[in-house]
């Protein structure tokens, strides 16, 4: 479409401008994705160049290096030891030894009582051999447990097999170990190169003591980041990769936690994209129907939850901050109580309060005729059992929960708006409402753009409110999806609460494979929405507007 210059744009009236902006916005969408792809390609290119440079460096090191450096291509740390960095060299060497032992020499563990292998530990190589990466139809792990017979004691026994979860997890560890091995190899070759260069230039090589000292100084970031990175790696990245892989299997936890403790094991299969395809199967009776309906409600919920809170919270902040309003601190503290008191207490209580047996629920039923008529027409006695009513109540109660947060934040920001902006607006003839729409609101939107984004994403995944208030109910009887059995999402379930139900099973057996596939889809939804919102909020576009 035609780009207008600044003067042409100013000629347009309000409606034409809106239309123009609207068109511009949607025409820009392909641009963002193009930008993303280009950025990604750029990264790939940079990476390729780095690899190339790395190889050249390695070759150079090998050609120019002395015997110790050349040997350290096979025996880790030899170069470092040669150049006097004993501690470092020994660490490198120990790592290599550990790797070799882990990879090849860990014996398969044996059950003490039966003397049979129970496959709790194996060498890294065995795990890797066993896992059958992504071979559709094949099992994760190869040795199935089977019934056997103990002739000595004349009893039937179970001959242990491999457990898929354990196999997959250990195979992942082995892959990580291999990557670490390669990185360490490269690192110590690089160290040799650095030592060579330093020696050539006639300077002194840093000692182990210097290395340790620098961890509190120019390498301080390594010290500070190490615990966090290890924590995130072990408890977020690794399980996340595991779960993404699970989405390509049919893992549903047959034995549950009890089985695992009793030493039973199960093998599950690689199924390729079957789970994702099932989740996106929108035909009659397919799980996609449930997913689609849930996605729509999740989006509606997130939009309403975010914006009702935002605007009402801002109003409250403005009211409390208005000149002439007394005991400001009291009003604020009343609201802050909601933040202080653990949500599960207040939310569970409120949920029960509105139930038929709760006193508000019964009050409404007995004393408000139109509500009673409405409930009777829906064959129930509580608002939680009527889909639309339950949804509206969730949004309303969420206002109760959310206003205090926004109020606090808005209070801080309102105080930061320069008073002369209002003074000059008054002199220009703006009344109270105009001051709000022309100054307060744009300023707030500008400053709180990032907050809006995070709170929108937070609401997409707002587990507590839904789960504690409605528990996802009422049950959706219209949705007939045979393959889901007891796990059909209720009328107020969000994607995240459904995910919780799928992975805890709630009586119908956990569906980890579906939960994992759903998790991937949730990620995609959140990522795409974030990208869009990020490009819309003013803070990122016109950074200097209010600076």
């Amino acid at each position, binding site marked *: 479409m035609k780009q207008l210059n600044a003067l042409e744009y100013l000629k347009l009236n309000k409606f034409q401008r809106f239309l123009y902006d609207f068109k511009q916005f949607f025409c820009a969408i392909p641009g963002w994705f193009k930008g993303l792809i280009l950025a990604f390609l750029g990264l790939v290119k940079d990476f390729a160049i780095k690899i190339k440079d790395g190889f050249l460096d390695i070759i150079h090191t090998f050609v120019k290096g002395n015997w110790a450096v050349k040997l350290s291509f096979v025996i880790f740390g030899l170069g470092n030891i040669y150049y006097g960095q004993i501690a470092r060299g020994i660490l490198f060497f120990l790592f290599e030894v550990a790797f070799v032992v882990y990879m090849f020499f860990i014996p398969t563990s044996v059950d003490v009582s039966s003397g049979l292998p129970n496959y709790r530990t194996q060498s890294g190589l065995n795990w890797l051999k066993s896992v059958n990466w992504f071979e559709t139809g094949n099992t994760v792990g190869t040795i199935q447990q089977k019934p056997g017979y103990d002739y000595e004691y004349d009893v039937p026994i179970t001959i242990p097999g491999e457990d898929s979860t354990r196999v997959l997890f250990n195979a992942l560890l082995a892959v990580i170990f291999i990557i670490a091995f390669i990185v360490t190899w490269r690192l110590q070759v690089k160290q040799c190169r650095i030592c060579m260069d330093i020696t050539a230039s006639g300077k002194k090589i840093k000692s182990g003591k210097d290395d340790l000292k620098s961890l509190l100084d120019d390498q301080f970031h390594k010290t500070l980041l190490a615990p966090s990175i290890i*924590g*995130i790696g072990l408890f977020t990245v690794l399980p*996340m990769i595991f779960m993404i892989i699970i989405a390509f299997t049919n893992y549903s936890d047959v034995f549950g936690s009890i089985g695992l403790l009793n030493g039973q094991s199960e093998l599950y299969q690689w199924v390729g994209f079957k789970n994702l395809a099932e989740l996106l199967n929108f035909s009659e009776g397919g799980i996609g129907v449930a997913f689609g309906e849930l996605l729509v409600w999740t989006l509606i919920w997130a939009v309403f939850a975010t914006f009702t809170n935002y605007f009402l919270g801002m109003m409250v902040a403005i009211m*409390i901050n208005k000149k002439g309003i007394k005991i400001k601190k009291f009003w604020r503290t009343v609201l802050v109580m909601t933040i202080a008191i653990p949500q599960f207490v207040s939310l569970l209580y409120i949920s029960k309060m509105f139930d038929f047996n709760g006193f508000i629920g019964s009050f409404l039923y007995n004393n408000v005729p139109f509500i009673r008529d409405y409930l009777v027409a829906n064959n129930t006695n509580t608002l939680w059992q009527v889909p639309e009513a339950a949804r509206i109540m969730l949004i309303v109660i969420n206002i109760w929960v959310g206003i205090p947060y926004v109020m606090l*934040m808005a209070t801080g920001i309102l105080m930061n708006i320069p008073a002369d902006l209002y003074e000059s607006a008054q002199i220009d003839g703006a009344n109270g409402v105009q001051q709000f729409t022309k100054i307060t609101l744009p300023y707030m939107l500008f400053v709180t753009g990032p907050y809006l984004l995070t709170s929108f994403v937070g609401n997409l995944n707002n587990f507590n409110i839904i789960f504690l208030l409605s528990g996802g109910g009422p049950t959706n009887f219209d949705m007939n999806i045979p393959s889901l059995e007891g796990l059909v999402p209720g009328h107020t379930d969000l994607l995240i609460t459904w995910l919780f139900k799928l992975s805890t099973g709630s009586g119908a057996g956990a569906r980890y494979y579906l939960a994992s596939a759903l998790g991937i889809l949730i990620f995609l939804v959140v990522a795409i929405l974030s990208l869009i919102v990020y490009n819309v909020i003013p803070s990122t576009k016109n950074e200097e507007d209010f600076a």
Partner: protein
Amino acid sequence: MKNNTSSIKKSGLGAKASRRISNTLIYIVLIVMTVVWLFPYFGIVLESLRMESTGRVDYMIPKEWGFGNYEYLFTNTNFPTWFINTTIMGLATAVLQTFFILSMSYTLSRLRFKGRKFLMNFMLILGMFPGFLTMILIYKIFGDLGLTHANAPFGLIIVYCASSGMGYYVSKGFFDTISKSLDEAARIDGATRWQVFYKVIMPLSKPIIIYTILMGFMAPWGDFMLARFLAAGDDLGKNVAVGMWGWLQATNPSTMYTRFCAAGVTVSIPVTAVFLALQKYYVEGVTGGAVKG
């Protein structure tokens, strides 16, 4: 609004009078809000003191008053265990999480190193995955290590803290506001980066440290999803949220309802006290975090 002549013409009221009317309206709204916001808390306190029945009733004021429900909590239920579990988790999380978050946010805010941008983007994207998914593997592994069921609180402490570095945003926003030339001046004065950290920046960061501690302490009281998963139904491994949630499920609402209220009050008092005492820092954190992104 000193000489707003146009409003005089329109409404026929003086500026003072119109302000008085609008203030009165605001007071009415605020009073209504106060009632609505405090109502559930009054309700829960009143119901916790109700002695004539333990189920739900359609009136608010108890007919028979007493502390029987509280007594029952501490004599006949696992509530004390849950309460201790949660308190331990709260304290441990407050300490450990503060350590993780501060080190991460300080590094990202004030130190420049290779891969900084990558790390931030990586954590941003990682944060878009539903975190709950990690629990399935963690549950399995913790099961092997004996950190589930009755020992779930210890497992949960690890889960809450290990990845908490990803929640660096608010405190990074705070650190970003401290002038960088302070670091530079200190480094020229002879400080190592470690000395800059603990001699210059930490003394200036009291508000954000308290905020982070407060958030860490509050987190286990509100967590439901992870806690329920790791406890796996074992009563001794539950936190208060999971345990008390069970009381309101289908099997026992009529016997446990007033006791739930009593437990709710018991839980709320210490947490609310801590929170209100440190409210100032919380407000600073919320405001700063939102503005800085």
